[in-house]
């Protein structure tokens, strides 16, 4: 009996342990998760900061002080740079360790390891794009330079010291929910941000979509629907800027350099809503006589935020701003002499080369009428709860073959190699370190020389009242239209030969108008600049609004630039709505339609959160756009729809060609028919929305801006229904999932600068911290915080928490 009892009891105990300690598919071990010592309970925090006040770090040389201000921004004071970056690594890991691990996995194509098979497609793409190789190349280059190697190693050591200090219960909640442990941080991971940003910002291209469209519909229609801007509409570099240099001659345009393919599906691209604004005013425009700079990168709104703010001080450096967690430098920020900010500059940085293999073994490929050897790489992807997947990637001299018989290739007919400038060894890190320490424009320009991409409009201002805009980076010299379509990979003449010299870059240093600005628009008046500039998509609205405002604004104070960053003027509506309203058959409107119409008729084109008119306009114009380009939805090959600017120009000029016809009806609709149909549908779909949601349809409610956690299934870590105005193509670019990810305004007072900032998130990445997401509401309301620097320097009363790090005895 007692044996039976023992075995039964032992069996039950062992089974309970096994069951409660075992993950089921995506459910973490429930006993572990609910254990008060090791489970999620340990991530519930009463105080905003739970670090020990005195920490010993073995590699540290001298004592370091870290003061956290009321926003939890660390002000790090070190006696040498290695200690400084080691501490930056330590405190960043304290706030964002899981996010850092996640980004490293994104770049290395290792997400499937922790989230399972649903990420396999994503991992494969990341590896085919070569993000890992880029990171390794960048890392190896930097580590050859003793100065940068010491910074990268110090930061890495700091992260690892933090990881080593953790017990199971201390692991960030995401590790527990996904049931894995933080692994050792490496110097390679410390270099991951470049690939992450390059993939987010410089991979926008439409070569395949364009090739498809042109093949099916011909060059003439292509040029109507996808025109190249001439750069006269408020370009980044003011139109009166002279370029008096002797340009390097562009390559001869060959007779035949493109290939005709039809590709069914293309790889996912960066989101077109990734954009940004920056502007600076000089002493003449400013009330105080000091230059003021403003920057706001518009990116996907995520929790934790893509940005982490810090203030780094050593005898050699005094810089504050934001960076991507895991990266030992300030990306956007200011020191006591200069400030800088970035917006993405859309430039075609990717070309696709069609490759012909000799045979199915893919060991040789055709180039310049000869057969050359290929390189074969086996990428093994570890997948949670499934067998490993091995992807075979072939490389040729152009770059990795992304589209091939194993990946999106129409039954093995197409092999496309990717030539991406980001694949070349990047030195952008060095540029950023120079910016962090620059005292004046000359030193800043020295840093620009190292900036190899992703292409940015880099705005600058200094305490002497100067402002500047630069577009540094690596740009191949192309003959017109080179790389707009798929190129012939066997033809040496289709390749890039030389790059635009640094001295020939787009640059503007000060301007009589007193300001400079950029917002992802076409960079320069084509007739002025001797080199061919191309991208398939540019901003056409935010830039004009910013410049319109800055021209009229005088005696500017920082608050005025804050209002401009939060400006809700809907430029699209101001251009197209009067035309649309004039085409409406207003006599036959019913009551609902009349109310809808009146709201629009009396609207001043501001997408303020509490208004209903923006909801009406966005609904109507979205439906119109969908119905207008419904022909594109029926195409079985990859194709892009014309952008909003081209579309609205075609509508206003009544030159929609045959596209106004709705395919779902037998009639041939005219543009006016279509506008009326879209209007009626918009009213119906609003009524439907109202009956489903049961609340009023003010713009903020209808848009429902969200900040979502990086793991989409962790829904309770999200912030929903954030009350904010604006939209895409509006200066306050807050759409549903995208928006200003960091707003910064800096007044360059030589007596000590005044800086302000806010971002939709929090320094802490822990959903169990009382300050998780605390800046989201102020951000939505257009509020800013004083950044504790210069005149506003951190006083004893502002210190929320202070820690001392000392060398281990």
């Amino acid at each position, binding site marked *: 009996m007692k044996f039976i009892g023992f075995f039964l009891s032992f069996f039950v105990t062992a089974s309970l342990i096994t069951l409660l300690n075992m993950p089921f598919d995506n459910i973490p071990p429930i006993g572990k998760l609910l254990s*008060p*010592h090791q489970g999620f309970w340990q991530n519930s925090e009463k105080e905003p900061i739970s670090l020990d006040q005195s920490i010993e770090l073995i590699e540290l040389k001298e004592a370091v002080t870290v003061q956290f201000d009321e926003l939890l921004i660390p002000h790090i004071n070190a006696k040498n740079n290695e200690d400084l970056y080691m501490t930056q690594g330590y405190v960043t890991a304290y706030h964002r360790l899981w996010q850092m691990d996640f980004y490293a996995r994104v770049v290395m194509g290792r997400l499937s390891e922790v989230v399972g098979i649903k990420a396999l497609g994503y991992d494969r793409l990341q590896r085919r794009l070569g993000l890992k190789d880029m990171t390794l190349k960048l890392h190896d280059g930097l580590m050859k330079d003793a100065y940068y190697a010491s910074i990268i190693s110090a930061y890495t050591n700091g992260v690892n010291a933090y990881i080593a200090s953790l017990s199971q219960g201390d692991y960030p*909640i995401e590790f527990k929910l996904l049931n894995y442990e933080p692994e050792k941080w490496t110097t390679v991971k410390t270099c991951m941000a470049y690939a992450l940003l390059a993939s987010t910002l410089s991979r926008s291209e439409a070569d395949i979509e364009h090739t498809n469209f042109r093949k099916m519909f011909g060059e003439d229609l292509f040029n109507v629907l996808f025109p190249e801007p001439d750069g006269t509409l408020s370009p980044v570099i003011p139109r009166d800027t002279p370029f008096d240099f002797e340009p390097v001659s562009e390559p001869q345009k060959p007779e035949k350099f493109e290939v005709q393919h039809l590709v069914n599906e293309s790889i996912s691209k960066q989101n077109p809503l990734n954009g940004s604004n920056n502007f600076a005013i000089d002493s003449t425009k400013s009330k105080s006589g000091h230059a003021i700079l403003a920057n706001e990168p518009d990116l996907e709104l995520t929790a934790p935020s893509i940005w982490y703010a810090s203030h780094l001080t050593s005898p050699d450096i005094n810089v504050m701003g934001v960076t991507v967690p895991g990266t030992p430098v300030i990306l956007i920020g200011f020191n006591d002499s200069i400030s800088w900010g970035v917006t993405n500059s859309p430039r075609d940085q990717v070309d696709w080369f069609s490759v012909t293999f000799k045979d199915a073994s893919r060991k040789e490929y055709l180039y310049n009428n000869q057969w050359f050897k290929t390189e074969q790489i086996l990428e093994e992807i570890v997948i949670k709860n499934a067998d490993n997947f091995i992807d075979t990637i072939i490389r040729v001299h152009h770059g990795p073959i992304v589209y091939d018989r194993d990946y999106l290739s129409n039954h093995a007919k197409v092999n496309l190699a990717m030539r991406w400038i980001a694949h070349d060894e990047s030195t952008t890190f060095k540029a950023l370190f120079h910016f962090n320490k620059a005292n004046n424009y000359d030193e800043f320009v020295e840093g620009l020389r190292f900036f190899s991409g992703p292409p940015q409009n880099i705005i600058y201002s200094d305490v002497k009242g100067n402002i500047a805009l630069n577009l540094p980076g690596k740009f191949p010299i192309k003959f017109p239209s080179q790389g707009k379509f798929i190129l012939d990979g066997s033809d040496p003449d289709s390749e890039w030969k030389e790059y635009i010299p640094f001295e020939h870059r787009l640059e503007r240093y000060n301007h009589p108008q007193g300001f400079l600005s950029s917002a992802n628009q076409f960079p320069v008046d084509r007739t002025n600049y001797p080199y061919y500039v191309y991208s398939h998509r540019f901003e056409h609205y935010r830039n004009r609004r910013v410049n319109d405002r800055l021209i009229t604004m005088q005696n500017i104070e920082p608050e005025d630039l804050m209002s401009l960053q939060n400006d809700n003027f809907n430029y699209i509506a101001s251009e197209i709505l009067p035309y649309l309203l004039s085409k409406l058959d207003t006599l036959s409107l019913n009551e609902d339609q009349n109310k809808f119409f009146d709201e629009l008729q009396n609207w001043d084109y501001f997408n303020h959160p509490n208004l209903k008119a923006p909801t009406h306009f966005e609904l109507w114009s979205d439906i119109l756009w969908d119905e207008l380009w419904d022909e594109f939805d029926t195409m079985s090959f990859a194709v892009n729809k014309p952008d909003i600017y081209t579309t609205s120009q075609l509508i206003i000029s009544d030159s929609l060609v045959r596209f106004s016809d709705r395919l779902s009806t037998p009639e041939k609709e005219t543009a006016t028919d279509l506008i009326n149909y879209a209007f009626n549908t918009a009213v119906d779909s609003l009524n439907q929305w109202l009956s489903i949601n049961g609340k009023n349809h003010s713009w903020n409610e209808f848009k429902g801006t969200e900040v979502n956690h990086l793991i989409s299934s962790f829904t309770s870590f999200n912030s929903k229904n954030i009350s904010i105005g604006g939209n895409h193509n509006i200066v306050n670019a807050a759409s549903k999932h995208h928006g200003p990810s960091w707003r910064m305004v800096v007044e360059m007072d030589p007596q000590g600068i005044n800086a302000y900032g806010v971002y939709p998130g929090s320094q802490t990445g822990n959903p*169990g911290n009382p300050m998780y997401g605390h800046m989201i509401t102020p951000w939505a309301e257009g509020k800013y915080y004083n950044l504790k620097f210069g005149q506003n320097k951190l006083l004893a009363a502002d210190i929320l928490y202070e820690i001392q790090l000392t060398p281990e005895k």
Partner: protein
Amino acid sequence: MKFIIKIFLMGISSYLLPFYFPWWSIAMGAGLISLVIRGSNFNSFNAGFIGGGLVWFYLSFTIDNTTNSILSEKIALLMNLTDSIWLIYASTLIGGLMAGFGSLTGGFMRSILTPEKMSRNEYIS
């Protein structure tokens, strides 16, 4: 009295052990205590269940209370629970069951290792 001491000891082991060992070490701790201190099977299970359960209840409840359920509410939502109180109940139940069954196993083990002394339970049966 022995029962109370047992509950107390199991509470202490359920509190301390997971700081150094995996969460399920509370079963081992409770088992070890029942191996050393004699008691009926029924008693052993109850002592573990009460000791382990109470400590896990206390720990999860205090954390939840001092942090205003800041995280438990979010975790409850992820698990489709309406109220974070269920997570405290679940933690309590897991702590109780683990220590309870660990203790019961230890008790049986004791009766196997000390055959000359009949436990009361066995006598009744």
